[in-house]
């Protein structure tokens, strides 16, 4: 399988069994020896579905790369803060370039 990089499209098994969904990697950080991904759902035409965004971390389950949702409050808070800072800088850059 290819390496997970920014803006790649990941096809993920839906946990409730309602079929697979596609997500794009909007951002990625390494924090405390763990890789965290900020994912946004995309449709078949690669248009963003903004209402579905999530923070996950990369794990290995049964020898295959998988994603685990970050639910532990402290961990979520710390990682969300890091993404917040990253996006804030990007946003300011985007506005100043307009």
């Amino acid at each position, binding site marked *: 399988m290819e390496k997970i990089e920014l803006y790649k499209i990941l096809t993920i098994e839906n946990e409730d069994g309602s079929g697979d969904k596609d997500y794009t990697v909007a951002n990625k950080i390494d924090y405390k020896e763990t890789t965290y991904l900020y994912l946004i759902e995309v449709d078949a035409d690669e248009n963003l579905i903004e209402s579905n965004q999530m923070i996950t971390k990369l794990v290995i389950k049964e020898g295959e790369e998988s994603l685990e949702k970050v639910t532990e409050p402290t961990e979520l808070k710390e990682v969300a803060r890091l993404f917040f800072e990253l996006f804030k800088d990007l946003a300011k850059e*985007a506005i100043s370039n307009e």
Partner: protein
Amino acid sequence: MNPDIYNERVANFQIRVKNLQTEIIEKKITMENFFQLQTIMQKVSLLWKECESIFYNIKNPKSQDLLLVYLENETEFLKILTSLLNNIEHYHKVVGEFIEKSEIQKIWEDVYKVVILQDTIKKYNRGLEIVTEKMNKFSEKERQILFQQEYSWLGDRIKMAEEEKTESINRIEELESKEERNINNKMFSESEMKRISLEKELKEKSKEALNSFENFFDKIDIVSEQKIPDFTEEEQKELRKEDIQVDEEYLNTLSLPLQIEYVQSVMETIEKVKGKKVTVKYKGVSKRISKKKNCVSSWLRCQTILRSLIIKYDEQVVQLADEMEKEDALRIQQAKEEYASLYEKLQVVENCLFKLAESAKEFLGTKEVVAVSSLNKEPLYIHKKSLDRFNAYFVEYKRLQKEINHFLERHDLKEVPPVEKFEEIQTAKYELYNQISFLNEQKEKLNPGENVDELNSQISKLRKELYKMNKGHKFAIFANLKVLFKSLRLSDDISSFYASIAENPEKFRNSKKYKANSKKEILQDILTKIQNSCLLTKEDLNEKINENKKKINDSLGIQKKKDFLREQFSKVRREFCLFPKKEEKCTRIKRIKDSINKKKLVESIASTVILCCSVSGLLYLQNDSVEAHEKRMESILETTEFKEYAFENSHSDNSNFSNTFAIHQMESIEEQQVKEIPGKENYDKQMTFKSMPKKETFSYDDVLKEIDFGDTFTKQGSVYRTAEEAVTKQNPYSTYFDKDSLSTVEGIVYKYNDTFVPIYSSQEDSESLRIAMVNNGAEPVGVLGQNEHTTTNDYEGYFSIDDIQFVLNEETELMNERGR
């Protein structure tokens, strides 16, 4: 009998080690110069290679373990000897060519003692074993009495020998840290001297010297032995008849300090004149002076003369100080110019090396190029034809570097030497690379049909050697880790097991022998053990730190061990974190693919980045769960504020609409005060950004010009190893601790008269020095920080004042104490 262990090769190895030991004990090996040191190191290195070769030729892992135990004595001896020799080598490299013959002989004495004591201890222990065996026939009580009466001396001897051996080892190990400490001490004491000289200058310029005559006279040096004549009683009577005043002719014959004394004595005489007195004031000095004989006018005139003499004297002092400073500045300027020209030469050579590398790029992947060194940790390739030129340039490069370092030391310049970009990879590896490459060429030149078997077998042998060299590095890590785990009182088996896992945790994670839960537990245990080991290391060295009271320099001693442990910890932790915490919450990635229209995707992500910011911001600030974010997004879009803003800005481009609204919200957030986070119900009702809490921070420029020890800050930029680097922002490091974590100010670096003066909270009179700096207009330009996650005496490093944000501490009431 296991043939892997009991064979001729292993026996030969043991004999060779024993011979080396005997040569050292019988003083057949001497150490008088660096060349002899290198000879011995080479012998030891060959023995290690042989040991590794024997180890890796054994396929059976059990036999490998047995071999480790069988050769424990030999490996322990080689380990100690290697460590001692490395310390001596490092000491020599740090000191340079100044190491004297007698000094190196002295150091070798300690090595000799260690070797001989180790052998003695072994013999004593063996003696103890024999004695214990012989006493088996007695009852326990009899054994105790017998041992106490006859053989307690043996235990004492062993103990003494162990202590002496440890002392010798410590003396040699201290060489390494001692020299580094000396160099740092030198830098530290130089800045201390600078500070003291600046203090003196401040005092001399102080107004107290002008106003206080007593202080002033204490500083006068009587240059000549010429004395002012004492007036006899008759002369005094005569004087009383006439006006008492300063004889200007006589005054001009005296030196400046004597002039002042003369005038003072005249004034005293005037003051002694009896009669009706009046109070006379002159520039804050008031005296009762007799009205007779123009005493008042004379006294006033003396005061005027005295005042002018004092001003002249003060100017002389200042002039002298200025001249000294100029000379010093000139010296430094000249040294800097010389350094600049040396550095320019170095850059020229560097450019030549880069050009050679550039010209070889087109041949990369072919056999025309060879790996000769590393550039920023990656191999550097040079065309074979340019090899001679490269070697010449490289030798010149190294020579210039050495010259520059010596120059800096001689002139006490604290310029940071250029970062060493070129590193020579091991000569042996270099040779192997080239031999393999040469043989491959030979193979190609052969005609079809000719026998290539011999060449192939030679190439294969060389490749094995290269492989072993790399393995050697891994073996070293394994050995160190095993020692680490054994020091934590784990058994030999478990230590080997843990060490092999920690050395290659990825292999363990992928292993099918163990279940996921067991693997997690084992990795967790290893992580805990490594962490505990870090604590042990710190505890041991805390005593040294307290003794020397040089906190920063002593932390260097634990840094290397800590770095190794940190690296291993990080390696194991990375594998540990790949295990999911809750398997049921994991979703498999079925496919990863590139986007069809990446540009469009990136642009659309960029346009929604504000929204992403909002979501992540909500998660972080509200400590919310992931599932709820969808509702939050909807509610943001549904708020009245958003709708009003939408209406007002309906002419704007819709794609930026939500962005500009959110930016506006974010900017208003940053102006808000700290408020409590509202409850969930209230939050659902009133969905705004205004209630987000914020840590109150201020930058140095905004509020105060004074920083005090113990102030709290968060970091916004890099950390540096020295004060100079922090101020000049050279050689930055990434911070180890999270940006949000708090640090306290344990040292302040001031800039005074173009000099950087660090003051540490641990210094005596640190507070008065700090106040003196502030009062004399010194500007704080850097701080030394200690992070909240570290223990006392363990500093994170230096920060530039521009890269930190101070945090208002409720307890200290910063604002009230200092005022604005």
